[in-house]
């Protein structure tokens, strides 16, 4: 289906152009740039709503397609379109960006217009990543995404921001270079840069494995998967709250998205051959990282590690597909796993955003992220405590919140692949609750431990608005995930069918 007007292009370019205008407005009237940025973000969100409202969930075809030649000499097209996999991620992006703009309102006093501009451009670029159907276009957006994030951490970040930005940049850049090589190879092989053309490209097993590894390097860093995850805790710790929110809520999802859009459909046989590797890395992420999260002293690091563990469920859900295919006594479950991974990505977008915002609320007041600097926050910030405990429970996967849905689906699916996968994955019920609630115990509950805590003010209306919006999203998805499942169903069904067919 295509609309009368280019919704995707508007969703991409409106925030980018709006961001540049905000930048030009300068810092002389910070409130003007804040309001302008907010309006741009809201308008972008509104513009993106027809993607859901007008979405035809009965087909796996790309929708809202725009396709015009861009660099005809190399068959490169400006080709956009969404299916059930990318559409929810785009809406997540436009929704979270609005909240991030509000969350940075008076918190950011240093160069506010540039701060707002960076997030708006970031938004447009990320939407571009999710909607690009041309590999060159995808790659341009993919690399462009690094720049605003680099700036956000590098300018508004903490004391070790230079180490963190360089680590972040090198890690992700290293991965993406190999992806570029793979894309160029496939271009020569197929004579096209179309991602959908790559899906049908015949490749032998060696080619597939090399391409798979090239993609893996790019996507595993982004997700991030163990053992290439160590940039994330550093980046989060140094990033300003808004940067952490975008990083955790959306940028990590681009890695997961990449597996679904590139690795699995383009190299199904290599994915099959190497699925043990991804499953192993995912389970290590769930178990190993869970224990590492337990001993963190810094709240942001703890949540960063928790993100890695939760993203382990995403990759686990995606790659158990082949083992489920292989088990003859099981006739379904593959779709359940991939759907579960997708739900987990959306849900983690809400929950991790909320958790980082909660830490941000405390950081803005006391300028510390150390757990030991807090204690008894509930006595002085009762409403904040309500949100913090609620999101902590969601992070621990409590049924009724979105955190449960994806984990539940992936556990159910992994049981069909192998009993012990499910056992290891289900340990998150214990370990995830342990690290999250132990932090809550030390930060929120207890007697007021210091004068700093005693002087804390409860959340203001702006913070309440942001956290309430996320709480509603978390509850809605937890109590009624069917609408999300329905829009993804056809696309994921088609994907699973596609990767079930060998290219050899």
């Amino acid at each position: 289906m295509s609309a009368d007007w280019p919704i995707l292009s508007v969703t991409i370019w409106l925030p980018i152009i709006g961001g540049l205008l905000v930048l030009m407005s300068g810092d002389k009237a910070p409130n003007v740039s804040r309001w302008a940025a907010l309006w741009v973000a809201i308008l972008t969100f509104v513009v993106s709503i027809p993607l859901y409202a007008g979405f035809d969930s009965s087909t796996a075809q790309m929708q809202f397609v725009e396709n015009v030649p861009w660099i005809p000499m190399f068959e490169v097209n400006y080709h956009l379109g969404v299916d059930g996999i990318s559409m929810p991620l785009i809406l997540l992006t436009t929704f979270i960006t609005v909240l991030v703009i509000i969350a940075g309102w008076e918190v950011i006093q240093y160069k506010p217009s540039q701060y707002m501009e960076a997030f708006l451009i970031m938004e447009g670029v990320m939407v571009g990543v999710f909607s690009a159907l041309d590999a060159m276009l995808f790659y341009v957006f993919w690399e462009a995404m690094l720049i605003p994030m680099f700036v956000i951490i590098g300018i508004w970040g903490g004391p070790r921001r230079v180490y963190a930005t360089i680590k972040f940049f090198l890690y992700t850049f290293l991965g993406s270079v190999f992806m570029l090589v793979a894309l160029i190879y496939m271009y020569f092989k197929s004579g096209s840069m179309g991602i959908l053309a790559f899906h049908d490209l015949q490749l032998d097993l060696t080619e597939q494995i090399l391409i798979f590894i090239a993609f893996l390097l790019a996507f595993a860093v982004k997700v991030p998967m163990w053992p290439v995850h160590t940039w994330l805790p550093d980046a989060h710790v140094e990033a300003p709250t808004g940067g952490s929110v975008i990083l955790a809520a959306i940028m990590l999802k681009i890695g997961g998205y990449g597996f679904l859009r590139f690795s699995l459909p383009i190299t199904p046989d290599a994915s099959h051959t190497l699925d043990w590797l991804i499953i192993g890395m995912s389970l290590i992420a769930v178990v190993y990282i869970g224990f590492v999260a337990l001993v963190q002293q810094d709240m942001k690091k703890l949540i960063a590690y928790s993100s890695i563990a939760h993203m382990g469920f995403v990759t686990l859900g995606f790659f158990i597909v082949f083992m489920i295919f292989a088990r003859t006594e099981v006739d379904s479950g593959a779709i359940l796993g991939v759907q579960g991974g997708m739900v987990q990505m959306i849900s983690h977008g809400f929950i991790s955003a909320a958790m980082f915002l909660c830490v941000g609320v405390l950081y803005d007041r006391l300028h510390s992220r150390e757990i030991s600097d807090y204690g008894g926050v509930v006595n002085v910030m009762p409403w904040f405590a309500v949100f913090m405990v609620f999101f902590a429970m969601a992070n621990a996967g409590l049924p009724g919140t979105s955190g449960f849905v994806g984990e539940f689906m992936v556990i159910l699916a992994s049981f069909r692949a192998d009993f012990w996968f499910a056992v290891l994955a289900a340990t998150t019920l214990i370990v995830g609750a342990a690290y999250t609630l132990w932090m809550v115990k030390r930060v929120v509950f207890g007697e007021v431990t210091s004068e700093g805590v005693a002087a804390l003010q409860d959340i203001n209306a702006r913070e309440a608005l942001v956290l309430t919006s996320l709480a509603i999203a978390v509850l809605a998805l937890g109590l009624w995930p069917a609408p999300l499942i329905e829009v993804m169903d056809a696309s994921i069904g088609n994907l699973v069918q596609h990767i079930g067919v060998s290219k050899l």
Partner: protein
Amino acid sequence: MDYILLTIVLAPLAGSLIAGLFRNQVGRAGAHWTTIIGVGISCALSFYVFYQYAFNGAPVHNETVYTWMVVDGLRMEIGFLVDRLTAMMMVVVTFVSLMVHIYTIGYMAHEEGYQRFFSYIALFTFSMLMLVMSNNFLQLFFGWEAVGLVSYLLIGFYVKRETAIFANLKAFLVNRVGDFGFILGIAAVAMYMGTLDYYEAFERAPALANATVVVWGDDAWSLMTLICILLFVGAMGKSAQVPLHVWLPDSMEGPTPISALIHAATMVTAGIFMVARMSPLYELSETALSFVLIIGATTAFFMGLIGIIQNDIKRVVAYSTLSQLGYMIAALGASAYAAGLFHLMTHAFFKALLFLAAGSVIIGMHHDQDIRNMGGMRKYMPITHWTFLIGTLALIGFPGFAGFFSKDAIIEAVHFSRIFGSDYAYWLLLSGVFVTALYSFRLYFIVFHGKGPRHFEPHHDVHDENGDAEAQEHHPVHDEPKPHESPWVVTVPLVLLAIPSVVIGYLAIGPMLFGEYFDGTLTVAPIHATLSEIDFHGAAGFILHGLSGPAVYLAAAGALVAWFVYTRKPNIATDLARRFSWIYRVLDSKYGFDSFNQWFFAGGARQLGKVLWQAGDRAFIDGAVVNGSARSVAWLASVTRYLQTGYLYHYAFAIILGLLGLLSWFVIR
């Protein structure tokens, strides 16, 4: 029926939301009125539903409310299954909850967080109803975790108290260990039966009775055994069975009303309810039944023993709860599901009564919980005293009282059971009767008889560790030298709970255990039909029959010993404790579960986390690989830098050297 059921569930939720979110607008009175009205509506309608099912033969209601999601051919729904089992649970839950709501007005009168408390207990009622009314495993799990959440919030209600926030984290995590098994059990059901709906699963289960799965190596396990044991691990967490019982005694850190409601009458019985509901599955695995029986009997006896030496009034009752839950679980293991449920019901009334009466004593003692400071309370608190005595008699199984019928039926049923472990279970359960009477009457005599209360002034300085924790520092100074009876909001629920504690056993044993009340709800395989082997000729005949068995005399002996030791010769107890000090130490350390868990699991996990973080993430990945490669690049650069010095003579020298080298190579060749 649809709207009635929805109202039953949603009325407490509405009350909870109003009291919680608009706590400042509604105020204290508004909070208790909205929640009491919500739970009251729910209770009244539950009685109506119960009446329809028990007496008017209403058909089983099994309908979907809404579809949670459909994915990969698996329907996940929210829906209600109401039959006679559910109807009974609904009445028990809403009635006890209503009593506790009313009681709380008195108990929490001077506490902060009054609205929050009412919001939580109404939310609990909602969650528990969702659990018992579910028609599928998904919603069961939802209710299961939701009651766990409310339990977490309520154990930690006194958020400033370190012991309380330790206890609630412990409770949540231990329950999560149970849920870990539970969710795997659900995953197994979903995989092998292809559905999460109860009835569909029950229909498909018999075909899988002989199915096997390979879990480890080449050993084939019975599928039904695996499923049933995994699900039962969840029940062990929620219903506090050994070794996952450790959270329940600590949960007494919460205010007393919730100890009655959540940690005695309703939530902790969720495991019993679940296993009974799954009886069509459990009947297919004798191994699982044996497992259930042995765990239950072990809990029943050994947890009762600990109750004898506790000095905190609530902890005595808590260990009693553990022990009684063990009885219920053992009944399930013996396939006497009806007896387990029957004991669940009678226990809900008399144990809620005991807790609330204990709470009334605590009010009288100005929040001192140490029974060594109590004594002679019968003179000051007559209603509390009489209701407490009724609860105690019901608990120990005094002939004619509620507990007598249910406990005797369990012991008889286990006696007739022939599965593995039934002899072990029978002797433990029988000995447990003596233990129950001993700790119950020890508590009764120490609290209500003898001299005392000792040190009765507002700020006394002799404290037990636990008693101290409960004592509120800012408690209003009391001028009155003697304790006095609690207000009517406290005593009325006591009286209302005392009535069923006496009569419900006599009235219900016929239809529930030997009649057709549970027909079509519970499944019992003919070879496991232990209850039907009991010779039943009416409730009165059951009493007479009971008088010819050992249990009644064991109870009497226990009560007599308690009377003799704690009112006549108080030094016997201390003598015994000294002479058998090793036994005392074992019991006092609660068999070492807590210290082991603290050392092995809590300490071990932190240690493992530190090692993985420091050695894995920091030293290896970051230190060696990431920063290591950065260092290698830097080293390489620093070496190659020597090649570009910028001095012309260095380059000239290099050129000459190169030229010499090349020339000599040409010459030598």
